[in-house]
């Protein structure tokens, strides 16, 4: 997943409002630049939003909220921490964060992947969906906060607990609440009370291990991790108990006296 061989265009984001920065990125992309390196990023929002699919962005600093919102194709590589809502409603592409991420990483995303080296905040992967042509994935190297995978309707969430600074707490509470699709893999164990209504533990079989290997190979390569060592620990799998969590909430239909 290294940047392609085409020459990079460098940009200094110092003092730039997000609208100006994003306009410059769009102009460069429209002019044919495929590799863009942005230095001194400081809180600018919506970076990557609306850019064409072939573009690779390297961001140094701290991008702002909604990094790669509605992202459809580009690769965003951040050297720093991301704020909230990275990959919000993204369709395809790759967001790599060499650092930590805030809340709602990958909210409602339906394709592409997000790799976080460190930990992520609350509601990671909330309402992720599996698009007809392929599911999304979020991989968190550290720990994840409450409501991980809430309302999850498809895709894959992986929490590795590698850079775990939160007193050994891998995941928060209300894990997978209302989950009705997809799968959550947590490397290690956690108390059962953290699991929310709608999700349940499922055995991690050979198919799951193959899936983990496929997702974690490129992730480990990016962050210089030993794949075999990461895979050597047991994973806990969470899956939806039903695809219709609220199917019996309502009274019967017309004619059922």
């Amino acid at each position, binding site marked *: 997943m290294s940047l392609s061989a085409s020459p990079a265009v460098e940009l200094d984001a110092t003092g730039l409002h*997000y*609208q100006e920065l*994003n306009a410059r990125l*769009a102009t460069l992309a429209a002019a044919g630049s495929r590799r863009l390196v942005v230095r001194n990023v400081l809180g600018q*929002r*919506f970076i990557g*939003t*609306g850019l064409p699919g072939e573009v690779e962005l390297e961001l140094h600093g701290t991008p702002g*909220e*909604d990094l790669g*919102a*509605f992202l*459809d194709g580009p690769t965003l590589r951040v050297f720093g921490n991301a704020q*909230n*809502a990275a990959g*919000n*409603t993204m*369709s395809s592409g790759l967001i790599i964060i060499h650092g930590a991420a805030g809340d*709602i990483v990958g*909210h*409602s995303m*339906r394709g592409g992947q997000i790799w976080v080296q460190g930990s992520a905040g609350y*509601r990671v992967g*909330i*309402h992720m*969906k*599996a*698009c*007809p042509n392929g599911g999304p994935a979020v991989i968190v190297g550290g720990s994840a906060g409450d409501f991980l995978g*809430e*309302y999850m*309707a*498809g895709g894959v969430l992986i929490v590795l607990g590698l850079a775990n600074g939160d007193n050994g707490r891998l995941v928060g509470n209300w894990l997978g609440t*209302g989950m*009705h*699709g997809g799968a959550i893999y947590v490397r290690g164990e956690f108390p059962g009370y953290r699991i929310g209504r709608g999700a349940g533990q499922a055995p991690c079989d050979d198919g799951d291990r193959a899936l983990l290997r496929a997702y974690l190979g490129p992730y480990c390569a990016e962050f210089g991790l030993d794949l075999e060592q990461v895979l050597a620990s047991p994973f806990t799998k969470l899956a939806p108990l039903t*695809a*219709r*969590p*609220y*199917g*019996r*909430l*309502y*009274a*019967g*239909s*017309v*004619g059922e*006296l």
Partner: protein
Amino acid sequence: MRSYLLPDFLVQVSDACIGCGRCVRECSFSALEMSGKRPKANHARCVACRRCVVFCPTGAISVQRNQVASRDNAYWPVALRSDLLRQAQTGGILLAGAGNDLAYPSIWDHLLLDASQVTNPSIDPLREPMEVTTFLGSKPAALRVAESATGELHLETELPPQLRLDTPIIIGAMSLGAVNLNVHRILARAAQAAGTLWNCGEGGLHEELYPFGPQTIVQVASGRFGVHRHYLEQAAAVEIKMGQGAKPGIGGHLPGEKVTAEIAATRMIPEGADALSPAPHHDIYSIEDLAQLVGALKQATNYSKPVGVKIAAVHHVAAIASGAARAGADFITIDGFRGGTGAAPKVVRNHMGIPIELALAAVDDRLRQEGIRNQVTLIASGGIRCSADMVKAIALGADLVAIGTAALISLGCTLCQACYTGRCAWGLTTQDPALAARQNVEEGVERLGNLLNAWSAELKEMLGALGINAVESLRGNRERLRAVGLDGETLAILGVQAAGRE
């Protein structure tokens, strides 16, 4: 468990019946079946959708209310008691389709319009130009006009994106899922023919309808169904759905049975899976968060189109609308408590939210007081039944109105309220291909187009009678409204005087 419920309706077949079986084929609720040469009714299944009555070739069918006597009780109406029995038998939340049907006062029916007499002559719309063109989009606080060296004037102020509508009526949001693709085809084509917009709702836009993008407002709701780059790019405008008048404060569940291959592809979810729209947006817990989504959508569409916010009419609607305007919304749709729905908990539909008339007046007042009314186009929706409601809404401060229920009625809806069953006999709120095929697209476009044209013509008639030659001059012109039978507090909120006051 034995049911204590009685059928709501009785289906009666007279001797005029020729035994053709048409009624049986038309009834999608299985309330009729052939028994020998005659149709036989299962009354309990009848929803009084009138389909069999309309299509019986000999007029042999009638549907009556089941008038089983019970002691009069104004406090415990039969319908309420039936709901209690149904809940006792199921333990479930009761669902309902269409809008709130309880007898709350309709303020429209207490408002009357002024008309010109003698000293302020009326205008004949048949021979005088009557301007009803409406622009949807944020307006600048002031315009700068510059003169070139050759003396030509040009606008220096850069205008925010504007959409030109030939009439101040748009078709309100009805999602693919709530209605079927045939209905979406009708709404899109009718909007195009009438020079106005339709709103595809929160269930995505079928690819076949992408060519109608310039007529389409696309929604971004809490489920984010079908929201992707191309969806946003092809639209005329984007609306963030924060609330819906029929079910303020709650989300929606499209049951897996309705998620057909077509719906799944458009919503971008697996076939047969429940489509859950959570109550809040997961990324919006404040006005600042709302501003962030408005900003993200403007960025995603390169600042080329209006981005709006739809909110339900609730107690603090004025403050919320002010927040939405300050969050960068170019338009705000206010959906009143009479607004329709494909499915909502009946208790929510019937008891939550406030009337659009009061919400609209309160919002218009607040935005004026804060000096930001120009920043947003105000769209009133939720129970606009006729052109008179529209004219009154504009006089109360709306820029335009959105119609949903009225549009469906033009296509055959009889307000039987069984939308949530997915068995709509008129082919509107169903995904059953055989039922959906009952909506003939060309005929539907003609019916809805006729309705829009009729309302526009009536609007011009009323403007002429008011002595006004442009709908803009009516906007927020509450002086042209008078009220009958409203209390002082309501009059103060509406900013309308009692009829008889000079």
